[in-house]
């Protein structure tokens, strides 16, 4: 027990790393609250931290329900889009001719603003959660496809020779050489997708939805319920942060050998 406490307290322990951002957070909240009191800023311009907190805590059920819907859309779209991206990236890495044929269109499609395609996808996939997942999957698709391809092509040629000398077969080359050397790239793609998937879910809800944080933001905007809007915005940020932390944790577990998963102290 005291061991754990000591671990938390020592230099570069949790407390040492966490106190500056915590202190900054407290300072900002106090300053924010104070400025609003001193300058009498109206609530529709900038709600006070206290009013946002009240918007979350009075009747929290519906708000957390909406957050849960958005989280579900983001995660489901992330998984589907990432899986499809991984498969296409693998095909590209193995077939030069397919890559040369399709890559320009994949890159072109990647530049389409998501707000422009969201209405089309919603027409195709209907008004339910499915279409929000599809928009999210669309956004999560490209980063992983491109990073997977790059990653699978990034193996070391001398290591290829080592596998040749050891008479490795095709699956062994893929699973024991190319895939492991692609993992750092895969996690670059996944981390991009985390951010994109929350954006995708909320943008899709802006276009058409009757639940989710995007819906809450739009309805709060129309009624100028600013504390509620800010509450929804903060929750969407929290979803993104938690999701990102989860992927970073997975990276530490699956790529412990790579520099990016290790402490840069």
């Amino acid at each position, binding site marked *: 027990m005291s061991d754990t406490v000591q671990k938390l307290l020592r230099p570069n322990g949790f407390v040492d790393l966490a106190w500056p951002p915590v202190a900054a957070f407290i300072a900002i909240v106090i300053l924010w609250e104070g400025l609003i009191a001193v300058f009498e800023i109206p609530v529709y311009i900038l709600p006070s931290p206290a009013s946002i907190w009240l918007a979350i805590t009075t009747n929290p059920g519906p708000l957390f329900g909406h957050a849960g819907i958005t989280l579900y859309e983001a995660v489901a779209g992330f998984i589907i889009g990432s899986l499809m991206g991984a498969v296409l990236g693998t095909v590209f890495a193995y077939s030069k001719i397919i890559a040369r044929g399709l890559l320009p269109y994949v890159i072109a499609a990647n530049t389409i603003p998501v707000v422009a395609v969201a209405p089309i996808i919603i027409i195709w996939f209907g008004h339910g959660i499915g279409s929000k997942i599809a928009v999210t999957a669309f956004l999560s698709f490209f980063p992983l496809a491109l990073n997977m391809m790059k990653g699978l092509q990034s193996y070391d040629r001398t290591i290829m*020779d080592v596998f*040749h000398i050891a008479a490795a077969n095709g699956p062994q080359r893929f699973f024991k050489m190319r895939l492991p050397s692609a993992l750092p790239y895969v996690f670059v793609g996944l981390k991009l997708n985390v951010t994109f998937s929350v954006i995708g879910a909320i943008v899709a809800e802006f276009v058409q939805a009757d639940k989710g944080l995007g819906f809450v933001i739009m309805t709060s905007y129309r009624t100028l319920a600013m504390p509620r809007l800010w509450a929804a915005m903060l929750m969407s940020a929290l979803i993104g942060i938690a999701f990102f932390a989860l992927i970073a944790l997975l990276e530490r577990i699956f790529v412990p*050998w790579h520099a990016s998963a290790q402490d840069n102290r």
Partner: protein
Amino acid sequence: MAEPQRVPPPAPEAFVSIAGLSLTYGAPGQVLVNALQDIDIAIDKGQFVSLIGPSGCGKSTLLRIIGDLLSPSTGKVLIGGSEPREARLDREIGFVFQDSALLEWRRIRENIALPLELRGTPKAERERKAEELIQLVGLDGFQKAWPRQLSGGMRQRAAIARALSTNPRILLLDEPFGALDQITRDRLNMELARIHEVTGVTVVLVTHSIREAVLLSDRIVVLTPRPGRISRFIDVDLPRPRGLEVRNDERFDDLVRLGNRELEKGYM
């Protein structure tokens, strides 16, 4: 002092025989490049042979042909009576590259056991063999280290251990110590000499250091600049086992001078 002499073409009973080998690069319609020409070498079982020559002479190319990483245009290589491809599929070839080419995502022990894993050797047997090799190359204590935690010299030790994991009959080394500092290089040369002595494996070493070649080899094959042909065989008659102090020997200097003279001939 016996002057080393030219050696006749390979006897059929040699363990490794390279006969009439040449390699020409270039697609049809392009300029053809003669990389290797009329190479005949015989290597006895357990012999330590070095290939030396100016850069671009094709010595690494020749080594890659022996290891079935390349195919010759003409001629034949036999390793214990088998073609390089068969020998490779039987896991009778160990290959060490200038770059250690360790898999960064595997700990040192799992890197050394990789060829056994690819062959399908059971885990317990793999671990036993890896442990034995870790002791042999002097990496005890680093079984669970990641490659990136090791120095260049230690990485090459691991690469040598990996190449030996399948008990190959021939160990091919392509300038394995070229990127190391002199002190580390000396130490690894001694390690390699000891490993050769302990295991009795046949060794072919590509190097551009004539001193390294004299220190380690039974025989040195000097190649000419492109196209690589055999300029001369130098038999190294220094007694074994050799320590670094053999370099203070007059005979050592004679052989180095002989080798240098032979290499310089190529530039005249």
